[in-house]
């Protein structure tokens, strides 16, 4: 642990708590509204606590969302795993196993991270249909491919920070490329994997654009179902908010339980410049 320069830092709690309140305000509204009855919903009383704690809204929301919840898992888990694996391999090759042109290929891949997705959905749908990749598999594939730039970037930067000697020693021992990757780099890549997996999991989970155009109603992931839950006339905000929380729960849990590893992963240099 780093020794602190000063011990009398307790005043720092004041801004920290103020900031925490800023971050938690929307969460508070989400929570209390989710427990209110329909009659209690009114913008003017959004800050007041619900009259009682009832889980009806959550039960109703779960009933509406559960099929999509599973669709989301079916799509997100393979998408996150496969794009992380690809990113790790690419990163390894681009950082440590440079062939001629590797330095051109890296920015070439990286640039893909920055395209506005709205502008490519028409060719995307055309391509996916032509390739027969419709529904959840197609959606997962889109997330994998559009995840390649950021996963490659993350792993490449991490592997680039590792000393070359690590590999040279193994090479002298006769290990080939895949052997080095499997036995030397993969074991120490765990923190980077955590960062990338979290990142990919969240972005695929929260994606709406690809989901709404690539899947049909039996395969809609949670974001589309949530969006459709809001009727065009009277919206049951209490159920809507309960549903929102349910939809956010998997990613929230991922952050809460893996948050420390996320930081550790960043610390390991994986997202440094």
């Amino acid at each position, binding site marked *: 642990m780093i020794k602190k320069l000063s011990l009398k830092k307790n005043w720092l709690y004041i801004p920290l708590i103020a900031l925490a309140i800023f971050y938690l305000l929307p969460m508070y509204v989400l929570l209390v509204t989710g427990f209110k009855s329909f009659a209690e919903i009114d913008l003017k009383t959004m800050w007041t606590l619900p009259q009682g704690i009832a889980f009806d809204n959550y039960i109703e929301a779960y009933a509406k969302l559960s099929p999509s919840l599973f669709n989301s898992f079916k799509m997100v888990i393979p998408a996150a795993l496969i794009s992380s694996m690809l990113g790790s391999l690419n990163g390894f090759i681009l950082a440590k196993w440079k062939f001629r042109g590797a330095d051109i290929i890296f920015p070439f891949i990286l640039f893909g991270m920055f395209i506005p997705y709205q502008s490519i959905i028409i060719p995307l749908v*055309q391509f996916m*249909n032509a390739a027969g990749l419709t529904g959840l*598999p197609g959606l997962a594939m889109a997330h994998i491919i559009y995840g390649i730039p950021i996963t490659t970037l993350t792993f490449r930067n991490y592997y680039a920070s590792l000393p070359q000697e690590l590999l040279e020693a193994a090479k002298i021992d006769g290990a080939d490329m895949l052997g080095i990757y499997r036995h030397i780099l993969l074991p120490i890549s765990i923190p980077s994997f955590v960062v990338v997996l979290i990142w990919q999991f969240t972005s695929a989970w929260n994606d709406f654009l690809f989901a709404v*155009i690539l899947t049909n109603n039996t395969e809609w992931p949670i974001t589309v179902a949530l969006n*459709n839950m*809001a*009727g065009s*006339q009277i*919206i049951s905000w209490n159920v809507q908010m309960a549903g929102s929380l349910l939809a956010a729960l998997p990613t929230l849990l991922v952050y809460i339980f893996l948050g420390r590893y996320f930081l550790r992963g960043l610390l390991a240099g994986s997202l440094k410049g």
Partner: protein
Amino acid sequence: MNKKLWYVLMAVLVIGSTLLAACGAAPAEEAPAAPAEGEIATDAEVTGKVGIVLPTKDEPRWVQDEARFQEALEAAGYDVEILFSQGDSAKERANVEDLITKGIQVLIITPQDGAAAAAAAEAAHDAGVKVISYDRLVLGTEAVDYYVTFDSVAVGEAQAQYLVDKAEGEGNPLYLYAGAASDNNAFLFFEGAWNVLQPKIADGTFVIENSSEAEAVADKAELTRDEMAAVIGQITTNWDFNTAKSLAEANLTATTAEQKGDVFILAPNDGTARAIADAFAADGDVTSYVVTGQDAEKASIQYIIDGKQSMTVLKDVRTLVADAISAAVAFLEGNTPPETQTYNNGVFDVPAKPSAVVTVDKSNVQEAVIDSGYWPAEDFTGVEEAAAPEASETTEATEVEVFSWWTGGGEAAGLDAMIEVFNKEYPNVDFINAAVAGGAGTNARAVLATRLQAGDPPDSWQGHAGQELIGTYVAGGQIEALNDLYDAEGWLDVMPETLIPLISDENGNIYSVPVNIHRANVMWYNPAILEANGVAIPTTMDEWFAAMDTLQAAGITPLALGEQWTQLHLFETVLLSSLGSEGYDGLWDGSTDWASPEVTTALNNFAKVLTYANSDAASLSWQDAAQLVVNGDAAFNVMGDWAAGYYLELGLTANEDYGWTPVPGTDGVFQFLSDSFTLAVGAPHPEGAEAWLKVAGSKAGQEAFNPVKGSICARTDCDPELFGEYLQSAMQDWSTDTVSGSLTHGVVANDSWKSEIDTALGLFLIDQNVEGFQSSLVAACASSGPCQ
């Protein structure tokens, strides 16, 4: 993975497991499964002699049988002797005794006369010969070891099942015909048919149209012999072509057009089926018919290929021969042939395993009748084309994907109500509700546009009647004309004349099925506020301004307004009010100049109206804005009449909590919009889509949908009693007012033009520059409208 690949995999798995199951089960019932001649391969070491007595050499069928038996049994290594009775029971008896003396172990006999053959059978039985009664049952003796026959009850069941499979929805007219009342088989056929049809009559799928006797017993699953006799007596064809034809013609004369349409006919055999089919085909009120048959006669096979008879039941005699041989072989080997059923011959129950019958229709006629060698292909014309189209029709009508932006509130509830009607009418068509939500349908529109671009259209989608339809989808060649459907369903008589041109191109092709009508130019007000401030309901623009001045002075927000599209909505009603309906309509066909001073006045009016609005409009949805009025936070709100549905959902009382009037200056004009459904070019399931459109255009469908959605029917014949107070007044106005179209909701301008106007409005809301607004509107008309 590719979805199609999944289906293939699934199919392989299912077929594979079925095969496995079949293999596993095979040893238990191997014997009589042999299908065709020449395939009886049994142990050649077993020797034995089989005697066969057939009725007559004068009928080709028995001569064919002779050859089949001879060939098959000899191939299997047995001795065979076949004799003919030539229609003489005495000869029959002599034949049997002759065979007994020749040392046969098994006798296969088709009695000339069931009762008279008893003595012959007994003689054989006494000599230790196993007696197999072939195709006809030997009656009144225990000396019958086995009976080989086709199951007449199963034939009737197969006929009825075919009708049931083809029927969709409820109230299908059913016409019943039977064989001769003197023939026991006629009773068995009818019994089988009744077994399958009765539950479907009881649940309303079918309505019997030609037999009061059958109707009288329609709730009885099992009929007594006497009840059956009564029914058959009324519908008998006597197995006679002419009787059948005149009975059918008499039935058609006695029934009304409502009892016809798409009819279902149970005809007992092929000869009568052709006669009945001809009679029905000649009746103008019969739009389609499904008719059964039996025997796979050549003429009927041709009828099936030509689409004039729907099906026949093939009783392949070769199967019967094979089953008889199998039974004989079983006896020779000291085994017992399998027994699945018994037939009472007056003395005891004779064991039997009825031979399989095959249902033949257009989809399998090639395979079942020609490929199997039952009839040669050259006897028919048009065989090759027969199978393919029919097969796709029966498999693909199983679903329909309908795209809309109705995912919540009254809209979704209305859609659900209409889907319910659909599911009742078309229980075999799976309804896929592909509704996608999005602010005023915009996400939905993007998804739709993307799918159309990618050549992956839904079968049917929601589109506003008018230019959104004609100027966008029709112009893009994305939807099919529906004139045939309009003719078939008689919609031109029930859809308003004003509406049809808006969903048609200049050639008179009609492109969509409107389900509802909404009114756009409605102003909602708070009666209490107006009363408290002594404000009368304004009827002109000037009165409206004066009223709003009074309210503003009293510290009340005069006008509730919401996000940008609600301002576009307000804008179109102010245009209509200022220009009058003729001037307004002229904006969209180029006869009113956008640069004219009248339009300038209209724009100034609009700018002035905006000054009375709440300051937080940009943050309010249309519901929020509508709610300001009933909450007493504002006096007026201009919104389409879906607001009435919203108020209803809020539990408010019409004319008490809220009142309505046409937007000032638009009295007598009904500014409308209409949701309609289309048929995609290249729809993956055209039959399903057509079924959906039929429901969407039907009275039942619209009456289910509209009261819930809060709109009036597009059809003019809906029952007003089903609707609330506001909607009844709207129905009244719709029938008397001048009709103009809405801009915001796709009637008067195509999508591009509308979007340009929307942008111009957005810029005006920021800079409040009327002159700039007008010049952008002129530019918009030039770039995307009719102004050049």
